[in-house]
Structure formats: structure tokens, C-alpha cells
């Protein structure tokens, strides 16, 4: 263990004199500044509707939508040209025109053109419902049931954090550890290390420890800055360490197949590109096919999300920690075997 410690101290000394450490810190500070000063706690999602209502009795009902939904705002206009002018000025708004055809009320949706079919159907139902509620004997029997066990949601600002943490903790580690190894190869110091009475795993674990230290420092700074002290930090550090070790071992394994950064670049980019798909399901929960859920990035992102939620699912997080620890160990055994064969070849 003394040799591992010696190697780690040397690597730490080299790291803090190198560019990557400061790049990580710089990127973290930039991220925190952007999140705190450029990104609001929650984005304004209020949907504006311009309504031209020619039936006097419905005017009040439509205006109440603002109060009930909270996310709607209806502004009444007095003519069709005024409606179209308002829509042209606000491209995220939609318009309705309620008129009488004989004795029957008719609803025209006036849209921008970029709305999806589902959005059109939703708008039609909303306003038809509003008009139906004016019929005698109408009773609203609709109930809402949510299947998600923890319906709590993160603020928009914190919601980006799981993606940042996975990129910073796992993906960047994968890339930087490869850079460190190739730098050693380029300087030739790897050969000098190879003719010293140390084990290959000393070399690999030392690099992994450096990456883990950097990930814990940088990620903790970011999380404290954006979330404060309300979350379980010991668990957060455990998760960061576990996921970072996995990313580093994956990076080392890829590195073992190449002899220069230039040659390894393609494989590293491809791996990061594939892992990014986990983020799609995070931002679009309705799109989570099995192949995306099998990617390591998927449980990583959702573990961070659970950690950041006030009532997060700790059991889910711990299950993933165990899973990644086991995966990392298996991967490391193979990586160590690969490096023994290829360290100086």
C-alpha cells in the first residue's frame, strides 16, 4: 500500500501542476455562475391565449382558466385582425375564436403552425370543456391519478444538475484519465515505471484515485452552491466515487487498446456519444426504451435525481451503487489484465 500511496502522491502533484485540474475547476465555477445568475430557479411556462369571444356568456368562463390552471393566461381581443396581430407578436401564444353559427357556438383554434397534433387536441379539449361547463346539469367527474411514486419535482435549475454531474463525474473522467495515461506514454515515464518493482494495478488505481478526488471536490462545490446542505452528502459522495470509478475504469479499458490519444479519440467520443442517450430519457420520460435503460448513464442520472429530491428513493440509489461497484470490479480485473499485456508495448 505504501507504493500505491507514493504513486498517488506523485500523480496528485503532477495533476495540480497540469491543465486538466484547473479546467475542471474552471468549468465548475462557470457552470455555477451560469446556473445562479443566468438560469432562473424555474422557467416561466405560462401559456398565453388570445381569445376573440363573440358569445358574451363564455367570456367570464374563459377568463377563469387563468385562475384555475395557473399556467394559462387568456387575453381577450376584440377583432379577428387584432387576434392575428397579437399572435404574430407573440410566437409562443395560441388563439381562439368563439362565434355563433346560427344558434350553435363554434370554436376556431388559431395556431402558429408549429404546434403538434397532441397539442392541438389538448387545446381543443380544454376549450370545448370550458364551453361544455356552461351547459345545464354539467358536472366535472375527472380525477387525476399519478403512477410515479415520488411525484415531487426538482426546480428547473436543479433539474439540470443530474446531467451535469454524470458528465462531470463519469464522462469527463473517462476522457481525462485516458489523457493522463497517454501523457505518461508520450513522456516515456511509463517505461521507467514498468521496470520498477511495482504492480500494474498500483499505476491504474493511483490514476483512478486522482480522478475520484477531482470528481468529489468539483461536484461537491457545484452541488453545495446550487442545492445547499439539504441533501444527504455522505451518500452523494459515495455515489460520486462509485460512478467516477466506473467511468475511469471504462476509460482505462478503452485506453488499453490504443497507443496514442489520437488513435483512441474515436472510441472515446463514440462511448461518450452513446452514453449521452441516457439524458434523452431524463428530459423526455416518455422515451425510455429498454436499450437506453440498459446504458450505464441512465441509472446514473436517475440516481443523482433521487439524491437531489427531498424524498428521494435511497434504496434505488444504493442498488445502483452496489451494481456499479460490482461492474467496476469486474471491468477493473479485465483492464488490469489488458494493461499487463500492453503497458509498454
Amino acid at each position: 500500500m505504501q507504493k500505491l500511496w507514493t504513486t498517488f502522491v506523485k500523480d496528485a502533484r503532477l495533476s495540480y501542476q497540469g491543465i486538466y485540474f484547473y479546467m475542471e475547476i474552471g468549468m465548475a465555477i462557470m457552470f455555477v455562475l451560469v446556473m445562479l445568475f443566468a438560469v432562473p430557479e424555474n422557467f416561466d411556462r405560462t401559456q398565453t391565449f388570445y381569445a376573440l369571444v363573440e358569445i358574451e356568456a363564455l367570456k367570464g368562463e374563459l377568463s377563469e382558466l387563468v385562475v384555475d390552471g395557473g399556467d394559462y393566461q387568456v387575453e381577450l381581443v376584440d377583432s379577428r385582425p387584432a387576434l392575428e396581430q397579437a399572435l404574430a407578436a407573440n410566437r409562443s401564444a395560441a388563439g381562439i375564436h368563439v362565434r355563433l353559427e346560427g344558434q350553435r357556438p363554434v370554436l376556431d383554434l388559431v395556431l402558429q403552425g408549429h404546434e403538434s397534433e397532441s397539442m392541438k387536441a389538448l387545446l381543443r379539449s380544454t376549450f370545448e370543456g370550458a364551453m361544455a361547463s356552461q351547459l345545464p346539469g354539467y358536472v366535472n367527474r375527472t380525477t387525476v391519478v399519478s403512477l410515479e411514486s415520488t411525484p415531487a419535482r426538482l426546480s428547473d435549475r436543479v433539474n439540470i444538475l443530474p446531467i451535469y454531474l454524470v458528465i462531470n463525474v463519469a464522462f469527463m473522467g473517462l476522457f481525462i484519465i485516458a489523457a493522463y495515461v497517454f501523457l505518461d506514454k508520450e513522456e516515456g515515464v511509463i517505461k521507467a515505471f514498468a521496470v520498477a518493482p511495482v504492480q500494474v494495478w498500483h499505476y491504474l488505481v493511483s490514476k483512478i484515485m486522482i480522478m475520484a478526488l477531482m470528481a468529489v471536490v468539483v461536484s461537491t462545490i457545484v452541488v453545495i452552491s446550487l442545492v445547499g446542505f439539504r441533501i444527504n452528502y455522505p451518500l452523494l459522495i459515495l455515489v460520486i466515487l462509485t460512478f467516477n470509478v466506473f467511468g475511469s475504469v471504462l476509460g482505462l479499458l478503452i485506453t488499453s487498446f490504443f497507443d496514442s490519444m489520437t488513435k483512441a479519440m474515436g472510441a472515446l467520443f463514440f462511448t461518450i456519444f452513446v452514453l449521452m442517450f441516457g439524458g434523452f430519457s431524463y428530459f423526455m420520460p416518455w422515451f425510455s426504451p429498454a436499450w437506453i435503460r440498459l446504458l450505464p448513464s441512465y441509472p446514473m442520472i436517475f440516481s443523482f435525481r433521487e439524491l437531489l429530491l427531498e424524498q428521494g428513493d435511497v434504496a434505488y440509489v444504493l442498488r445502483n451503487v452496489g451494481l456499479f461497484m460490482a461492474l467496476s470490479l469486474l471491468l477493473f480485473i479485465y483492464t488490469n489484465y489488458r494493461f499487463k499485456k500492453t503497458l509498454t508495448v
Partner: protein
Amino acid sequence: MIKVQGLYHSYTHTDVYAVKNVSFEIAPGEIFGFLGPSGAGKSTTQGVMTGLLPLQQGAVQVAGYDMRLRQRELFNKIGVSFEQSNVYSKLTALENLEFYGKLFDVPTLDPMSLLHLVGLNEVARNKAGTFSKGMKHRLTFVRSMLNNPAIWFLDEPTTGLDPAISRKIIEIVKGKNAEGTTVFLTTHNMQVADELCDRIAFIIDGEIKLIDSPRNLKLQFGEKIVVVDHRVDDTTKREQFSLVKPDDMARLQTLLQTGKIEMMHTKEATLEEIFIQVTGRGLL
């Protein structure tokens, strides 16, 4: 101390070999020179002997360790000085030596004394990245001495060094050898090989062409000729006399009796001439 038997190595894992059927033995305390031009197979052979390259075919034993098993303990007994300097440029000279010193399981030499030995004591606390090529080379050289190795692998130890420093390095190697260190010297510098080596091997195209001591090689390949500068009237005349032809021997004897000889020396072949004679190729 070192035993290499039927060594083959291919970088492409095909029947294109960088070294072919290389065999030799090195006795304890011997300085063995491995001579050949670039690409001849010197570094490949040393790479296998130092564990930097895997042993594919053949048998290699270094200090009693079978290189097929690649046991790490071996590295407590050997030292390797590389042709290309390979030190941590962001660490100081002293930090470089201190780091490697802590990796050994055997007592190591004092880093400052080693730096002093090669004239780097004044810059011990300067980062190696600021060093000239020669200074880095000296640092790489003394790093290989840290564990006071029983077997010392030296790859072009004087390349790129000025004559004074080269002389210093040669004296250090002689000194360690006098203490009992076995030396495996890879070089294309024939003067260094001639001065240091007990035996030398010529390697070309991955094959050893010849192994012998420099003295035996000179006796075997050198011409048996004496060159004599002598006075004739008021001028100096240079003549060559064969030591095997009776006429020449008689004339030389006559000349010796006249007492007019100013200078006289045998004409030995240099190792470089012998190398060309044996392999049909130059060293560069």
C-alpha cells in the same frame, strides 16, 4: 547472470521477426556489449530481457528469474537506463529520484549523492522540464543506479553527451563493474564498447553474427603489420612491415639495429572495421 536461448520476437505476431534465434550468456561481473545499427534488434532483445516486451518464443533468464513469468521482484535487482530520457518534467530532479527510490523493496542510494555524481547537484531542485537533453540523459542514467543493481542495462549511455561527461559516465560504469555489477551495454559507439566491454556481440537484421572479446576480435581480424617511422638522411620515412613475411621481418630487424626508428606501432583493426568486415554493413 543472464541466459538467453533461442529468442524470437515479432511485433506483428507473424513470421516477420525483429530478433531471430538469439542466444548468449553473460557471466556475473561481465560487461557485455550489444552492438549493431539502428533497427538491428538491440532494443527488442533488451526489451524482452527487462520485461518491457513479452517473451514470445525462446527462454530468457535474468538474475535467476524466468522472464516468461515476469516477476516484479526482479526489478529490485536490475537497473535500466533508457536511450530516450524519460523523467517527469514537472517534478524536480530530486523529486524524480525520490519518487522512484520509494518504489524499491531494497535499500537505495542517496538521491543527492547520485545527482552529485553526474554534476546535477546544483540543479537538484529545478524541474526536469527545464533541463537540456544531456542533463535529462544524466538524470535518467543515475535513476537506474538507485537500487544499486546487480545487473545494469545501459542503452546508449553516452549518446548526446559532451566528451567530459561521457568520460565521467564511462568511469562510473567501470567503477560499478569493479564492485561486481554485471552490465549489458547496448550501443553503436565502438570506442565506448571497446573500452568497456569484456565481450561484445554483433547483431544485424535480428541475428547475432559474432560474439567474442574485443581483443580476440582484433587479433582475429586485425592485420599483422607494424608501422615504423624512421630517419633516412634528414627526413622521416614511414614504412609498413608484415610480421608474417620473412623479407619484411628481416628488413625490420635491420632497421631496429640501426637505431634510427622514431615511432613504431602495430596496426590493429578497429571494432568498426571488424563490424563492417563481418556484417558487410556500417553501424549507422
